[in-house]
C-alpha cells in the first residue's frame, strides 16, 4: 500500500516537474505572404468527356491564377500521372516539386430521368499535411449541372478551393454587368452587357438604341437597375434578367440617376435633380413609396448603403468640393468621427475630388474615385475616415465596384485620351492589377452577388 502511494506520488511529481530537457524556441511575428503553389492536373475523364474535363480544369486554373494568390505548378513538372480521385496521391512526388496543395478531379456524365447531366467531383489534398482538406465540411465535392453550364461547375470548384485555402468568401461563380461601348466618340453606342466574372459568356441585354449608364445588380440576382436616356429623358430603369422586361422606376418629374439597390433588394437609392440641385431619395419597390434622404442646396449624389442597411455613404460638395459623407438611413443625427453630431458626417478631408463611393460587402471600407493632380485614382478608406489608400493611378480610373466577397474591386480605365475605356480589377491590397477581357470597349462594371 505504502509502495503504491509512493509510486503514485513520484509519478505525480514527475508529471508536475518534468525532467529538464534542452529545447529551442523560435518566435516569428510576421510571415511572408506569397502565392500558394498549387497543382491542378487535368481532371480524369473518359470518352467524350476528356475535352470537357480539360476545359473545366483550365477554367479552374485561370480562376485561381487571376487572384494573384496562387501559382499553378506546370503540368509538365508533375511526377505522378496515375492520379485517381479515390486513391491517396503519392505525397512525396508532389513535395519534390514544392506544391502546397493538390487538386484531383474527375468528370463524367449521368442521365437522370432521360436528361443528361455532367458531374464533376473534386478532392483537395494538403501535400505537406498528407491529408485531404475538407471542402465545406466534406472530404470532397461533387457538382452536377447541364452540359451548357460546365463553366459554372468550374467556377464552383474554383470557389471551393479558393475559400478553403484563403479563408475568403467565394466570388468566381458570379456575373459582371457593364456598359459595352462601340462606334465613334460622337455617335457612341452604349449597350447593357453581362458576362461571367472571368469575362466569358458575354451577352447584350439592350439593343443600343438608347444610351444606358451605371447598371447595378440587385441582391436577388434577378434584376438590374440602370439609367437610360430613352426618349432623351434620363431616368432610372429596372431590367428583369429572366424575362428581359424593362420598366421605369417611379414616375419622377425630373431627371433621376445614380441608382443602387438597398442591401435587402426591396428598395432603390437614387438621385433626383431639380432646378440645378440634386438630392438623394429611396424608392420602395413594394409600396412604391419614395422618401427623401437629403435636403441640401449642394449636390448630393451616388448613394451606397452599408451591409446592415443602417447607413449610406454619398458624395456631396456641401463643403466646397466633392467629398464623401455618411448618414443614417433614417435621417437621425449620428456622432461624426471628426467630432460632434450631425445628420451627415464628412469622412474625407484630403485634397482633390472624391466621387462614386461604394460601401464594401464586409462593411469596414468604402471604395471611391479620387481626382487629384491631373490623375484619377481608385482608393479605399475606413468608414471612420481613417486609413485612406489609393490603389490605382491612371489618366482616367472611375466607377469602383466590389466583388461579392469584398476582396476585389473592379473599375474602368482609360489609359490615354481617346484610348477607350476597358474593365480592370485590383486586389484590395493594391496588388494584382489586371484587365478583364471584353470584346468591345467597356465601362461602368458592377458585380452580381454570388450565384445560387
Amino acid at each position: 500500500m505504502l509502495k503504491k502511494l509512493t509510486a503514485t506520488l513520484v509519478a505525480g511529481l514527475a508529471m508536475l516537474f518534468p525532467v529538464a530537457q534542452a529545447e529551442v524556441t523560435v518566435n516569428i511575428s510576421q510571415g511572408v505572404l506569397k502565392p500558394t503553389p498549387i497543382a491542378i492536373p487535368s481532371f480524369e475523364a473518359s470518352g467524350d468527356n476528356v475535352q470537357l474535363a480539360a476545359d473545366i480544369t483550365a477554367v479552374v486554373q485561370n480562376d485561381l491564377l487571376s487572384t494573384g494568390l496562387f501559382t499553378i505548378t506546370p503540368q509538365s513538372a508533375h511526377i505522378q500521372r496515375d492520379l485517381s480521385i479515390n486513391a491517396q496521391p503519392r505525397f512525396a512526388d508532389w513535395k519534390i516539386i514544392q506544391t502546397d496543395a493538390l487538386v484531383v478531379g474527375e468528370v463524367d456524365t449521368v442521365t437522370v430521368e432521360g436528361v443528361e447531366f455532367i458531374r464533376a467531383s473534386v478532392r483537395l489534398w494538403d501535400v505537406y499535411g498528407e491529408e485531404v482538406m475538407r471542402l465545406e465540411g466534406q472530404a470532397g465535392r461533387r457538382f452536377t449541372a447541364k452540359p451548357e453550364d460546365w463553366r459554372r461547375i468550374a467556377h464552383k470548384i474554383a470557389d471551393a478551393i479558393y475559400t478553403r485555402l484563403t479563408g475568403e468568401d467565394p466570388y468566381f461563380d458570379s456575373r459582371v454587368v457593364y456598359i459595352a461601348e462601340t462606334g465613334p466618340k460622337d455617335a457612341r453606342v452604349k449597350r447593357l452587357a453581362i458576362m461571367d466574372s472571368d469575362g466569358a459568356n458575354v451577352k447584350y441585354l439592350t439593343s443600343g438604341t438608347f444610351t444606358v449608364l451605371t447598371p447595378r445588380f440587385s441582391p436577388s440576382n434577378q434584376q438590374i437597375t440602370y439609367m437610360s436616356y430613352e426618349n432623351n429623358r434620363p431616368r432610372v430603369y429596372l431590367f428583369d434578367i429572366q424575362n428581359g422586361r424593362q420598366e421605369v422606376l417611379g414616375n419622377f418629374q425630373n431627371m433621376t440617376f445614380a441608382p443602387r439597390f438597398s442591401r435587402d433588394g426591396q428598395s432603390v437609392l437614387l438621385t433626383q435633380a431639380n432646378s440645378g440641385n440634386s438630392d438623394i431619395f429611396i424608392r420602395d419597390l413594394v409600396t412604391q413609396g419614395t422618401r427623401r434622404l437629403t435636403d441640401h442646396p449642394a449636390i448630393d449624389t451616388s448613394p451606397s448603403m452599408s451591409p446592415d442597411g443602417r447607413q449610406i455613404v454619398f458624395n456631396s460638395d456641401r463643403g466646397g468640393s466633392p467629398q464623401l459623407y455618411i448618414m443614417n438611413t433614417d435621417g437621425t443625427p449620428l456622432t461624426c468621427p471628426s467630432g460632434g453630431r450631425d445628420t451627415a458626417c464628412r469622412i474625407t478631408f484630403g485634397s482633390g475630388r472624391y466621387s462614386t463611393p461604394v460601401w464594401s460587402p464586409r462593411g469596414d471600407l468604402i471604395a471611391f474615385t479620387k481626382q487629384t493632380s491631373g490623375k484619377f485614382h481608385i482608393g479605399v478608406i475606413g468608414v471612420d475616415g481613417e486609413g485612406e489608400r489609393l490603389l490605382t493611378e491612371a489618366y482616367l480610373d472611375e466607377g469602383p465596384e466590389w466583388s461579392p466577397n469584398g476582396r476585389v474591386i473592379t473599375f474602368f480605365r482609360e489609359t490615354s485620351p481617346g484610348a477607350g475605356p476597358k474593365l480592370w480589377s485590383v486586389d484590395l491590397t493594391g496588388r494584382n492589377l489586371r484587365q478583364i477581357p471584353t470584346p468591345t470597349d467597356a465601362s461602368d462594371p458592377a458585380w452580381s452577388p454570388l450565384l445560387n
Partner: protein
Amino acid sequence: MIRGIPASLLLHAAVIGAGYIAWPYVGADVLEEEFVVVPVDLVDLGEITNVAPVREQPEEVEPEEEPEPEPVEEEEPEDPVEEEPDERDIPEDDIATSSEQSAPEETEDDVVPDLEQEPEEEPEPEPEEPEPEKPKAPNPTPKRNPLDDFLNDADSTFESERETKRRTDPPKQEQTEIKDITPAQEPRKGAGERSANTVRIEQMLYNQILLCWDGVDDQPEPGRLNVQMRAQLDAEGNLIDVELVRPTRAPIGDRSMALAIERALRAVRKCQPYRLPRDEYAEWKIMNVNLGSRFGDTGQ
C-alpha cells in the same frame, strides 16, 4: 593695372566655379570601381560567444598517433627499446600527419578550433629540435681550419662558462619565463562556455521557418491569430512529430483560426529537413515554434 583686376577676378571666379562643379566628382570613379557587389548570407550571431570546445590535443594526439610510426620502426632494423631518439625524429612526420588527419575530424565539429589548434601544435616541437641539431651541424666543418678551431674553442669555453653560470645561478627567472611562454602556446580558454556554436540555433531556425510561413496578414483581425507548436526532430533535421500547444485545435466555426493553424503546421512541415549542426542535436531535438504577431521575433 586697371585691366588686370577684372581679368584676375574673372580668372579666380572661373577657377572657383570649375572647382565647385568638378569637386563632387573627384574620386567618384575610383569609388565606383572599388564598389563590388558581394552576395552575403546574413546570419545573426549569439550575444555571447560560445564556440565549440577546444580539446587539449597536443598531449592527447601524440600518444594516439604513436602507433603509426611503429610500423615504420618495424620496417627498419631492430630498435625495440630506444624510443627517445625515434620520438625526436618521428614527431616531424607525426605533426604533419596528425595535423592532416586531425583536421577533418575537427572541421566536422567546428571550424573555429582548428585554426587555433594547428599553430599551437607546430611551434612546440620546432624550438626543441633545432637546439640539439645546431651544435651538431657546425662541428664537422670547422675542424679543418686551426684558426677556426681556436675560435670555436674560445666560443665553446665561453659557452661552457655561460652554461655553468646558468646551472649555478638560480634559474628561477628563466624557468618562470618558460612557464609563461608555454601556457601561451597551449590552448587557452576564450570567452564563453565553448559548448555550442557561435551562431544561435534559434536564428538558424528562424531564418528557415520564416521562408515557409505565409503569415496571416490577409485574414481579418490577424493580431489574434497566434499559434504555438512543439515539434520533435531527428538528427537529420526531419520532423518526427509536431503538436499544437495553443490552441490545441481549431475552434469550430472560426475559419481564420483554422486557416492560421493549418498554415503554421504546413510551415513547420514544409521547412524540413532543417539544416542545423548535428553535433548540437541535443539542443534542437525539441523545438517550440510560435507564429503570430503576439510573439516578438527571435533574437530581435
